[in-house]
Structure formats: structure tokens, C-alpha cells
């Protein structure tokens, strides 16, 4: 059998087996993907993120101001998951939005809360904390911030933090009411109708009902992202 014939035979086998056959590089990608994801405790979110939060990256969870929200629920689920795994999480709370009574007391055992005065201060704090190997997740709560609060932030700071997250292979999640930065690997919008009648519903049921959708970057933001990358380069 000549070389060409062999290639043709392999192609025929591949056609017959379809997706059941995988190359070594495919398997490597799968393995790497599996290893570098941190489960969130929410199956819907895990699905959207391809298995969990990408380690070494920033993920944005956007919960718009309005009748539908869910950002706080996602935060509670992540906190609960990290506590179950007996790991530590650091929360950078900008604007004092944290409410201790909203979370089960045992979940708070794994939480280190850092109260920050501004988004810039929270990034500076994350810059310090992201060098620490003791924490497996960093949460930035900017839900109370407006665009003008973060618009002046230098992209170099974002990239420096990303570099450190990558080095430590730690995930960071930014909760905001609108898309913030183009350095985020993924931006997901969370939606669940928030009504008075659901305030007594079990949280586990609310978690199941959370709906996620990937956010498309606006043209302006994409241009801004390219500019940021050029500056960082």
C-alpha cells in the first residue's frame, strides 16, 4: 500500500467513525480544558463557560439594573461551591454592597472581604492579592458602580493582573451591571425575574432557574479593546 493509499484509507475510516475518532492534539485540548476550569456550582453557567470558570482569566457576569437580575445569586453559588471545596475566596466589594445576612454563615468562613472605595482601589487590591497562592477565586463586586467610575482605568493594570492570574492559574469574576472591560475572556449576562413573590423561594430552586447568555461586545468596546492591547503590547 502506498502512502497515498494509506492516507485515503485513514480518511475513509475517519469518515465511517465520524466524531468518535480523536487525534492526540484533540485529547490534549480536552484535557487542558478540563484541568483549567473551576466549577461554579451552577450547571447552567458551567455549560456556558465550557466546564467552569477559566483559570487564569477574568470572567464578567453582568446583571442589569431592572426587573431581571441574578448577579448576587451567582455570587452566592460560587461562594458556596468554594466553601464546599474547602478553599478560600476573596471578595473586593466596591461601594459596600455586601450583605452578610444574604449568605449562609458557614459559607462566610471561606470568605475574605475587602471593602474598597472605588473600582481603581479594588483593582489595586486585586493586583496585590492575585500574587497570593492561598486563594482559588477572586470576586469583584462592581454592581453599584457606574461607567464613569471605571472609565479612567488604565488597561496596563488589567493586563498586569491578568498576567498574575495566569501565572497562579486562578479565576477572577467581575460582577457589574454593564460590560466593563475587553480583557474579560467571557462576558455572560445573567437573568432571572426578581419579584416579591420569589423572595421566599428556596435558593437552590432560584439557582436552577438562572438563565445565561453570552454578551456580544459593542463595536466601540471592541475598538477600545484593540487599542488597550496595542498599548499593553
Amino acid at each position: 500500500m502506498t502512502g497515498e493509499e494509506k492516507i485515503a484509507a485513514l480518511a475513509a475510516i475517519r469518515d465511517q467513525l465520524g466524531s468518535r475518532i480523536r487525534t492526540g492534539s484533540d485529547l490534549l485540548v480536552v484535557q487542558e480544558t478540563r484541568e483549567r476550569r473551576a466549577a461554579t456550582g451552577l450547571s447552567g453557567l458551567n455549560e456556558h463557560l465550557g466546564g467552569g470558570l477559566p483559570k487564569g482569566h477574568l470572567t464578567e457576569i453582568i446583571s442589569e439594573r431592572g426587573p431581571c437580575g441574578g448577579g448576587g445569586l451567582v455570587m452566592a453559588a460560587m461562594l458556596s461551591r468554594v466553601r464546599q471545596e474547602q478553599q478560600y475566596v476573596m471578595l473586593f466589594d466596591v461601594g459596600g454592597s455586601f450583605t452578610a445576612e444574604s449568605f449562609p454563615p458557614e459559607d462566610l468562613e471561606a470568605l475574605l472581604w475587602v471593602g474598597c472605595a472605588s473600582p481603581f482601589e479594588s483593582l489595586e487590591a486585586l493586583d496585590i492579592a492575585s500574587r497570593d497562592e492561598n486563594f482559588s477565586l477572586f470576586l469583584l463586586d462592581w454592581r453599584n458602580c457606574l461607567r464613569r467610575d471605571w472609565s479612567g482605568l488604565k488597561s496596563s493594570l488589567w493586563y498586569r493582573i491578568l498576567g498574575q492570574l495566569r501565572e497562579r492559574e486562578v479565576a477572577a469574576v467581575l460582577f457589574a451591571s454593564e460590560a466593563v472591560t475587553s480583557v474579560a475572556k467571557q462576558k455572560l449576562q445573567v437573568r432571572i425575574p426578581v419579584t416579591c413573590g420569589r423572595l421566599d423561594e428556596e435558593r437552590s430552586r432560584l439557582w436552577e432557574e438562572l438563565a445565561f447568555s453570552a454578551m456580544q461586545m459593542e463595536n466601540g468596546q471592541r475598538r477600545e479593546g484593540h487599542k488597550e492591547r496595542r498599548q499593553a503590547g
Partner: protein
Amino acid sequence: MVSCPDFRLQAVVRRVHTESQAVTLVDDTQRQSVVLSRNEAAMRMGVEIGMKTVQALARCPALQIERPSAPAEIAASRLLLETSLSWVPGIEETEAGMLTLDLSTEPEEARVDSAKRIRGRLYDAGLEVVIGLGETPSLARIAASAARQKGESIWQLVPERRLDLLDGLTLEVAEVGAELKERLSLWGIQTPGGFARLPREAVAARLGEEGVELWLKLTGQMRRPLRFAKLEELFEEHEDFDYEVCDREPLLFVVNRFLDQLIVRVARTGRAATAVHVLLTFANGVCHARRLALPEPALDHEILFHLVSGHLDSLEWKAPVESLRLRFEPSDTVASQRLLFGAGLRNRFQFEDTMKRLRRLVGSERVGSPRMRNTHRPGAFELVPLPSEIETASERGGPPVTGFTLCRWQGRVRAEVRWKSGQPERVASRPVSGIVIRAAGPWHCGGDWWHEGKQWRRREWDVELSGQGVFRLVESEAECFLEGRYD
């Protein structure tokens, strides 16, 4: 008892390095220089203690003459003590070059082997010692003297054979006074064993207090508590600079050297450092002292250097440094047992460093692990240090967790509320305004009425505003405000 013969001489010139060389320690402070101490080689050449130095030189022209040195004696004392600390923790510095060790924690059968090991370590470090083992500090001292007299390195006064063994010694070993010794020799008593066999009452009647004291010593009935050496003052290094140090770089160089030395010394005792004390003296007379605590005992050079250098970096110098003193607070290496199934901080040193920097950035009152306070006051939580261990999550008891989380707004967001039949009908505020389509409440709460001027009372509603979400509305002190949004 660990005893270093001719301690002052050994402190200046290590005996093990000058076995063949005749060496003597002389006292130059008198009108005529005299010999204070000499080694074996000098003794063989006829050099005696108390002899004039000139006379000693006449007998031994190659005699090496040394003078006492207080720093060398301190260094030798530290070496003796630090090395002995690897044996037992309770040690008394009875005299210069003489330590009494509390071996009550050591199994009897292991004592001789441990003694040999310590003697070997000291010999390697240049000090030759003899070790006497006995039931009481006094008997151990006698045993050490016996070892010296018999030319042995270790001598044990076994309790079961104590009188027989004492029979083989002279009265000098028991440090008997000249007058008492003469009286005893007239009675025909030549050994401590013979004296210990005398009845106590007869000794008391004939020899008085001195005789009874000796009798109690030899029969093992004289016990006294040991005054243990303070370890925290032991592991210290200091330097008075001949020049003024204006820069951090040379200071860190000295710190590095000190840490190297202290780490070796503390490691020799099987311990670690729990804190480092730094004392700086500046040329303007100001002293800076600080205790730098470690999150857990450590002896890692990198960690300790980072700790000290980090502190020195944060220090503002107004004058050059004149002297530096570093001291280790020693502790046992195993300070706590970790939880069997728990997990915790991977790197406590890094964590402490992160905390320090975060506190500097946002303020110490804004970093910590939140805990609910024992009050019904909404939003009240306190910050505690993050636990270094996390136990396995237990099955959650009590009522299930319900509802959304409250995203609190900063400050009071005042709201104008239109009421209808005691229920909010319309809410107008800076961030949100609208018709209330559903409301839950009111919930009354209050507290601290037992504290004068601190009492609080409020009414809460959860209000759903048309197309805007659910908010917490609060009525307190005759005003209404929105506390936050459910998310």
C-alpha cells in the same frame, strides 16, 4: 551537669585545637602578672595556677599566653547552652561554663547516649566538656567533678549504687570545706560514701549546719528548683557600627549575615523562630524596636529575610544607623496539629504579607472574614481573621436558604413615598422611582433600647417597582429610604 573545665581558657583558645601546644591564661590586672589557668600541655611543662607569668615562661619558653575575654566567654556560654538545648529544654546556667540540665523528661536508659551525643557536638564545636549524671543537681555536680578527677568524659552516679560509687571518690569532689575535711579525716572518713553512711542526727549534733548540708547532698535529699535560662535572650546578634550606616543596602547585608548565624544556632536546638526582634539605634539618639511576629514558627532564610527587610523598607530614617540588634524568639517547630480532613492556607507567610499590604491600601478595618453579629440590626457584621483551617462542610441544618441576595446601596438613599392604607403605593428616589406593583411587609424590628441613646427602630417593606425590580424600603426616624436592591 555539663561542665566545661578551664572554661575561661577554653573560651579564648579552643582546647581541642591546641592539645599539643602549652597555653596559659594570665591575669594582667595585678601588679605582677599571674597564671589563672593552663592546659594539659602547660601543666606537663610545670606551669601551675597562681604562678607568676615570668616564672611560667622560664619553665616553658614556648608557652602561649592569652588574656581573658568577656565576649569570647559569652560566645562560649551561648554555644554550650544552645547545644545543650537540643537535649532538654530545661537548663540552668549554674556557673560560667557549668550547666545543670533537668533530665526528668528523658528516659533513664537514653541519658548516657544523649550525653555522648551532646559531648560529641560540643567537641566538634571546639569545646571539651565532662558530663555528670545524678539524681539531684548536687549529685550531678559531684558526678561531673568525679568525671574530671577520673579523667572520664561521662560519669553517672547510679541511684542504686550511689554509696558504693561515692566510696570510690575523694572528699574534694564533694567540695568539702578545708576545716570540715580535716575534722572528717581525724574521724577516719576519707570518702563521701563514708560520710553519707553516718546517721543524720549524729552529723547534725557534731558538725552543725555545714555537716547536715553535705549529708543531704550526698544522700540525694537536697533538692532545689532550677532557674531555667531565658531562651528569648539567647538567640541574639548585634553590631555597633564603626561607621555611620546611611543606606539600607549595607544594613541588609549585615541582617543577612545575622540571620544566617541565628538560623544555624536555633536549628541546632531543634526549634524554630516565632518572632524576630529588631532594634536599631540611630545617630540622633532615637531607638527603634519592633517585634515582627511570624504566622507560624519558621527557620526559612528567605521568609525571615523578607520579614526583616520588608520592615526596614517601610521605616523612615531621619539619621544614620549606629547599631543593629536582631533577636529570635524560639519555639517548637510543631506548634499546632492540622485538621485531619480539613484544608487551610497553603502559605501562611504569603497570606500575612498579603494582609499587611491590603490593610495598608484599604485600611485595617476593611479587611477580614465577615461574621453575622448577634443582633437583628440589618447589615451588622463584624470582621474576624480568616481561619487558617477550613473544616469539611457539614450538613446544613435549620431552615433552607431562601430568596435573592440584597445588594446594599452606600449611604441612605432618601425616598419620597406615597402611602395608601398603610402600604407604599409610589416610591420616588434618585436612582429609582415608580409605582409599587407588589409590596411585602411591614416588618417591624428594633433593638439596643437598653443602651441609652443607641436604640433603633425601623419598619421594612420589600417593594416591587414596575419594570425596575425589587427593593428594600425602610422607614426609620420619620424618614423613608431605600436600602438596596434584591439581585
